[in-house]
């Protein structure tokens, strides 16, 4: 598949070695690679042009030309510029209005993920201690309002559903009354979509906007969209006025150039991202991560954060001490397994490693997960003594554990073998010996 941009840039600059410093034509060559990477990621070609102009003026500056690692310097310029276009590094939040409730209009094309995003945003607000009221004014698509109501029920969200009303403005008015009466701080309005921008829809959205005086009008955009992303985002911006973008279906493998296109032409920041099918899989948008993705640099940042989020520092230090003293037990091993599982599916974790996104789909991650589950079950069926000192595991103990965990003796044997090997390895690590250094020498260079 695609070579990552950094590899290509390395190659461009490698041929230049020995020339001493970079010339402008070298930068041109680099920019051509960047152009191709952006186009492959579905960034709109006009946006690409505009973007490269910005990059060029900085890339021909002294910091790059004099840099010892020009490839990295160019990438840094590209990254900085892109982060800025996508809305910067500030933490994203929802704007509120002075008078309650604050209304959020969810707008966008058909199938972009408005209804799901509405529920997800609702959950996100609830997690932050708020009490949003959800309402769908989509009287067009069959069962659209039903969908929001069911989603709401499943996720413990309040959904206003005046079944007898069938006119968007009347539905919205009724929701606003309800919100004021009950004291909801937010009303999230799921609006009707269209195949493409049409006058009728725009008029309806304008009406809803006038009525609701929303604090946010979010444009929901499908991360897989191609060159068309620019046109529709532009239209929504011009005719309704949007304050932010929600990027959906980021759990797929689209490079997501649409995000850059939409943000550039609307000037609105990307505020949130949908990253999975579950209602909880929704997060404030992180521009740096998206940039890595568009450029094919992987989501190292996301991976690091995920590890930090799930690994208990004290536990980790304690484990490190034990490893050093070669006291690793099956109990520790089990803890490790649990931590890996807490980080999310193997598939998701692998996907965040640069260059692994493609590989993740070819590795049977589910088999890996089943294996982990099985191992946890086996360890859970052991006595504390067996966990501390697996060498006591004789035949009858192995049989008992296999029965208790619903596995076979072979499974138990395999786990024990694996563990003994790991312990042996750990001993070598713990000795601070050559192995550790050898491994470290092999690690890819990280910036």
């Amino acid at each position, binding site marked *: 598949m695609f070579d990552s941009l950094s590899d290509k840039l390395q190659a461009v600059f490698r041929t230049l070695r020995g020339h001493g410093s970079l010339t402008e034509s070298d930068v041109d060559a680099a920019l051509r690679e960047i152009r191709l990477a952006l186009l492959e990621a579905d960034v709109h070609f006009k946006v690409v042009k505009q973007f490269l102009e910005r990059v060029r003026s900085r890339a021909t500056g002294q910091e790059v030309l004099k840099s010892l690692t020009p490839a990295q310097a160019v990438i840094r310029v590209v990254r900085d510029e892109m982060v800025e276009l996508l809305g910067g590094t500030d933490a994203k939040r929802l704007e509120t209005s002075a008078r309650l409730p604050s209304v959020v209009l969810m707008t966008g094309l058909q199938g972009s993920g408005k209804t799901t995003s509405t529920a997800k945003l609702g959950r996100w607000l609830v997690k932050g201690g708020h009490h949003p009221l959800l309402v769908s004014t989509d009287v067009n698509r*069959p069962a659209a309002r039903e969908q929001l109501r069911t989603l709401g029920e499943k996720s413990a969200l309040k959904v206003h559903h005046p079944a007898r009303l069938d006119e968007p403005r009347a539905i919205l008015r009724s929701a606003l009354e309800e919100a004021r009466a009950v004291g909801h701080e937010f009303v999230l309005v799921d609006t009707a979509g269209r195949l493409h921008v049409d006058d009728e829809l725009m008029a309806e959205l304008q009406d809803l906007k006038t009525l609701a005086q929303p604090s946010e009008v979010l444009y929901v955009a499908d991360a897989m969209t191609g060159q068309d992303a620019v046109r529709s985002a532009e239209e929504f911006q011009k005719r309704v006025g949007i304050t932010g973008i929600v990027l959906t279906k980021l759990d797929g493998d689209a490079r997501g150039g649409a995000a850059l296109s939409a943000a550039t032409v609307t000037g609105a920041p990307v505020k949130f991202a949908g990253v999975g099918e579950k209602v909880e899989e929704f997060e404030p948008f992180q521009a740096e991560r998206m940039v890595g993705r568009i450029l094919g640099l992987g989501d190292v940042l996301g991976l690091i954060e995920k590890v930090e989020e799930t690994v208990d520092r004290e536990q980790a230090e304690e484990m490190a001490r034990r490893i050093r003293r070669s006291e690793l037990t099956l109990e520790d091993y089990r803890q490790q397994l649990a931590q890996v599982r807490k980080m999310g599916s193997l598939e998701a974790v692998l996907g965040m490693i640069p260059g692994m996104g493609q590989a993740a789909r070819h590795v049977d991650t*589910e088999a890996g997960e089943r294996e982990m589950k099985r191992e946890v079950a086996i360890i859970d069926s052991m006595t504390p003594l067996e966990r501390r000192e697996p060498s006591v595991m004789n035949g009858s103990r192995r049989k008992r554990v296999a029965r208790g965990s619903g596995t076979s003796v072979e499974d138990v044997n395999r786990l024990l073998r694996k563990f003994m090997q790991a312990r042996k390895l750990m001993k070598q690590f713990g000795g601070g010996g050559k192995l550790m250094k050898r491994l470290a020498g092999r690690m890819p260079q990280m910036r």
Partner: protein
Amino acid sequence: MSGPSFLDRFRKGLERTRDILNADVMDLARGQRPLEPKDLDAVEEALIAADLGMPAVQEAMDVLRRRSGQIWTEGPEAMRAVLKEEIRKSLAAAPEARSFATRPWVVFVVGVNGVGKTTTIAKLAQTWKAEGRTTLLCAADTFRAAAAEQLEIWARRTGSPFHRGAEGADPSAVLTDGLRAARSRGYDAVLVDTAGRLHTKGNLMNELAKMARVAGREVPGAPHETLLVLDATVGSNGLVQGREFARAAGVTGLVLAKLDGTAKGGVAVAVVRELGVPIRYVGVGEALGDLLPFDAEAFAEGLLG
């Protein structure tokens, strides 16, 4: 069907694409000057803007460069002809599909979330009904909230029989019951609405493979067709979707949905080239009648005018 002719509606669907290509490329004709390298850049951009995908674009550009001598002397008309020929060639390579060879004719409709699977099914049911066939609509999307309700409404509107299970039920079980019902009642066809799934979710793709096996047990040879619905606005990811769905579910044909005037649909060319399966239908609007059988000739014509 009354109203504009088939070809007109096709052309209308691709209007936007043609506009881009025409504005950027064909304006060159008016100058009556020899083409320059920067003109080729304009062509490249136009093809990119049509979502043809970078590999296909680069290949087309190679062809243009190779034949640049001819194009240089004969002008933009020759360029247009070369491009049209390339696109037509790519699209015509795929084999013809046969339909309704056995009863019930079982068709899976698959695709990522939000591409328009359910609406496509409604349109197909309507078309087939007009041809005098009875089609069971089987709601095997047990995941998305109210998906079955949406299909049920379409079944009522098109006057088609309908089968569903409980929300969250095993789609294969729902499918089994649906196929049995279709068999015993002698329906002509079954359209199976599957849950939208991103092609990156291995377990969901496996579920699709399982459903195909289950269908084959109930009705010999089923699914007889597996239609992958592509959103006409999708970018390069459409190609990846095609590849992955073909691997898991054995796609036999494509439906290009939402090709209604703003979308480009160029990615379909790339997918056909890659998978070697034909585009079967094109969705050109929101109404039930807005599903057209695909015509490579008309598509290439519509794309490049």
